[in-house]
Structures are given as structure tokens and as C-alpha cells.
């Protein structure tokens, strides 16, 4: 789609059309967390199975747009089998890539359209692998929440899995 190459990279569309790790794990033993995007009403369900500090399994359910679905799918593929610590690092790195616009609202300056663009901080894009394809989303601020939805939900799930039952 001309003009939208940055947003709809081929790999994103691939994950959207063929989502990985789709479904729900049985709870318990798995932990189940729901996340939702108030903007569009989309809901995502992340179930994770944490064993001995390792994210042994993860599944994704719920509905969403291409960005939220593919981000969730890529995330699941990236964290599955990783240690919880590694997963948390990845979440931080991914949110770092996205937060440039999420957190930093257009700054100071005028109202008259002259809105400063903040340059992305140095983040370890290499660590993200194919997730780096989602980088283009930052140019579409409204969609950032779509991309981060599953990640925020996973973070919450890891917290819950860590806390004594």
C-alpha cells in the first residue's frame, strides 16, 4: 500500500494472516491476563505458563487490528521458551522502541503545527529481530497503543506469575 509501507511491512501482514501461538492455555497451571485498548475496544487474552523462571508456553486469544494481532503473534514467537528475565528485557526494549511517541508527547513549542519530533533514543534494535519490523508504527502515533497492547498484557502476566498465588 503506497504510503503505508512503513506500517504494513510484509512480515507484519504475514503474522496477521497466520498468527502464531493462537489460543488459550489451560488455567491453572497457566496464568491468564486480559488487556484492552479503550480507543477501539479491542481485547487481547494472553495465557502464559511459567516454569522454573522460564516462559515455557504462551498463547494469544482475542481480537484486534492487524498491528495488534501481528505484534502479539511476533511477541509470542519471540518470548516462548525464553527466561522470564529475557522476556522482561525484550518487553523493555520493545516498549523503548514504541515509547518514543507514546510517552513523549509533542513537546513545548508552538501549537501552530510546529511540533518537535523527538529522535528515538539508542535502543538495541538488533535484539528485536523481526520485531523491528514494527518500528514503522511509531510514525502512526494512534497505532502505537495497538502495537504495545499485547506487551503490556504480557508484562502484567509475568508480574502475576511471579507473585505468590
Amino acid at each position, binding site marked *: *500500500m*503506497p*504510503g*503505508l509501507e512503513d*506500517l*504494513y511491512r510484509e512480515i507484519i*501482514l504475514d503474522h*496477521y494472516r497466520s498468527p502464531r501461538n493462537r489460543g488459550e492455555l489451560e488455567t491453572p497451571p497457566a496464568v491468564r491476563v486480559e488487556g484492552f485498548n479503550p*480507543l*477501539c*475496544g*479491542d*481485547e487481547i487474552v494472553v495465557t502464559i505458563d511459567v516454569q522454573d523462571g522460564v516462559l515455557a508456553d504462551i498463547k494469544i486469544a482475542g*481480537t*484486534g*487490528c*492487524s*498491528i495488534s494481532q501481528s505484534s502479539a503473534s511476533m511477541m509470542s514467537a519471540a518470548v516462548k521458551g525464553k527466561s522470564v528475565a529475557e522476556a522482561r528485557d525484550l518487553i523493555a526494549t520493545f516498549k523503548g522502541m514504541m515509547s518514543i511517541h507514546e510517552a513523549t508527547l509533542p513537546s513545548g513549542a508552538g501549537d501552530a503545527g510546529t511540533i518537535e519530533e523527538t529522535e528515538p533514543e539508542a535502543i538495541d534494535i538488533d535484539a528485536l529481530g523481526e520485531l523491528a519490523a514494527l518500528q514503522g508504527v511509531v510514525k*502512526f502515533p494512534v*497505532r502505537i497503543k*495497538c502495537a504495545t497492547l499485547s506487551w503490556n498484557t504480557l508484562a502484567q502476566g509475568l508480574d502475576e506469575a511471579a507473585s505468590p498465588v
Partner: protein
Amino acid sequence: MAELTGTRSPTATLDAATLAKDFPLLTREIHGRPITYLDSAASSQRPTAVLDAMRNYDETTHANVHRGVYTIAEEATRRFEAARTNVGRFIGAPDPGREVVFTKNATEALNLVAHTWGRTHLGRGDVVVLTEMEHHANIVPWHMLAAERGIELRWIPIDDDGQLVLDDLDAVLDGAKLLGVTCMSNVLGTLNPITELAAAAHAAGAVVLADACQSVPHLPTDVASLGVDFLAFSAHKMLGPTGIGVLWGREELLAELPPFLGGGEMILDVRKDGFTPNDIPWRFEAGTPPITEAIGLGAAVDYLRAVGMDAVRAHEISLTAYALDALNERFGDGIRIFGPSDAEARGGVLSFALGEVHPHDISQILDQYGVCVRAGHHCAKPLMRRLGVNSTARASFALYNDERDVDTLVEALDEAKKFFA
């Protein structure tokens, strides 16, 4: 619903392409294409006449109202109060100078009723009836009152054509103290039978609060023949500015209500030990009102009146019929259009699901073609749940849209569909 001035004939027409020239934003290009603005249900654009009226006020007349003896303060007060009367006449208010309360938006108008009328008339167990198609602005204030004082909410359901189910109306209204109902759904386009509902509510002893956000901009409105008690709407959806909404209320009802917010303008006297509230409508307008915005709303009303609300309505019916046909023809079973299938039974708001393509993605792709449609829950989450969706894409029309806009929409949707196939 009879209208007051302007073109009266039900066959009145307007030329959208000519009118569109009055709206500076519509000359803008998006991604190298002319803009196709189909989100007037969220907020409309403003004609130069409205922008000029506000600018003229700001450049020649501005002073705070109601307090000054000097020339521009008096002129400002006159222009501000003239706008009030003008708006009141536009909706057929019997006593426009006293019954029109300026608020910051329709949401504040609805909250005003919940706070003042609600707090003086509703106690534990009292029933407020809403419809499943209400906007959050006519739901959340009642939830807040329910949490505070234990009132009960009842819901008039909708059928699969997006119409209110009125079979059990008397049972639903039995014992109700207030009916809150939208004149026109901002998602389904459904035009509700307000006159009939108001009569039934009154028979049950309930007062009627109508949310007219989507109807006042698009249909002739006459509060007397609607028979409602309160009516709320926003300027920014009717070619006017942001920052101002309206609550109309029947004089007898308003006159007995306590104040809402406290401050200047709404008082007759303030002592260390208490205060005496002002007369209506100022009792409900604490602080400096949206003065420039009232001037702008007055100018928007003048513009709409000059075009003629019958002509607006006729135009939007024909455009909606055209759009329904075009979408059904192009996408067949691939599109689900929510709300009444008959264009006459609805306003120019088309919410739809296009196969599996998510509304966000639809809107994003359409934007590449310069087409502005909204994607989301449209502040009607209970309705979304009823429809079994999280969100919809929504195209909505105003008097500046024409069939070419619909054609552009259909072509762009086709591209979106192909892209995500």
C-alpha cells in the same frame, strides 16, 4: 417536525458541491488527494461565515459579558444573548431567552440534568430508563448517580434492524422517573420515535431527556412537538465551534432546579454564610461563558437556517440511500451495515463491518485515499456488545457531502479489502 424559517418545502434541495466551497478545510489535500471528510458525526467542519463571525467578534467587540456598562461590554452581552435567543428559536423553544443554557458541550448538558434534576428527584431504588443505543454521555452520568444514590437503570433493547423494541415499553417505563433517549443513534443512524416515547414516558410519570447531538445538525427540530423536557446538543457537530453545547429545558422544570456549578454569573448574592442563586438560564452558567463560541454557534444556526433544515434532511436521505445501495452492490454479503436498512428511517451515519478487515485498518487504508472515517466504539460500548463487535468503521455525512464522496469511499474500501484479503 415543523421548522421555523428558511426553505420549507419537503422537496427542498441543496447543492452540496456549492456549499462545500464555504468550508475551508474541505480544500485540503491528504496524501496528495482531495479530502473526503466523512466524520461529521464526530465533529463537523465550519463554514467561513462561522469563522468570520467569531473573528469579527474577537476583533471588534470582545469584553466579558453581563457585567460591564461600557460600550463593547454591552455589545458583547447583546450579541451573546442574541445568540442564545437565536439558538432557542432554531429548536422551537417557547421561551428562547430563558430556556437555553450554554454549556461546554453536550456531555456537560447531560451531566447538568443528572446533577441538578437527578439529585433533587432521584433516590434509592428510583428508576432511570435508557436505551441500548445511548452514547456514553447519556449513560455514565447515570452510572455515577447510581453509585452515589442507588438508583436503578433499565434498558430499552434494540432489534436486529437497530430499532428500539417498544413492545414492552409500558412495562419498562412503569415506575420510571426519567427516560434518557437519543434522538438519533451516532452508530446506527436510527431515528427514534421521540414524540411517541415522550408521550409514553409522560403517561408513566417520567420526564424525558433527549440527546439531540446527532439530530439537531441534520433534521428540523421543534422541542414543542417532540414533547421532551430536556434536550442536549453540541455546536461542534452542527457547523459551529468546539467549546460550547446547549441544554434546552422546559421553563417550569429549569426554574425549579438548583444550580450546578458555583461561581460568578450564577448568583444574585454571596455572603460568608451562603449564597442566593440567579434566575434561569444564568443560574446554570457559572463563570465566564463561551462567548466567542456562542457567537459562532449563532452564525452556524444562521447558516443552517439559510440552507434550510428540510433541504438538509432531504439531501441526507438521498445521499444515505445512494450509499446504502452502492455499498451493498459492491460488497454484497462482504459488508454488514448496522442499523435500519431504510434510508428514511435513519440519519446519514453508516457503521459497517467489512469482512474480517479491522476498522482500524480500514480507516488507515482509507486515509491513504484522503477518506476520513472513524474506527472505534464511538462511545457506545454497550451498543457494541449488543452488536457483538468491539468496534465498527463509520462514515457519516453532512450537507457538504455528495455522491462523489460516496464513490470515493466505495473505491477506497475496495482497496482496503483487497489489501487485507
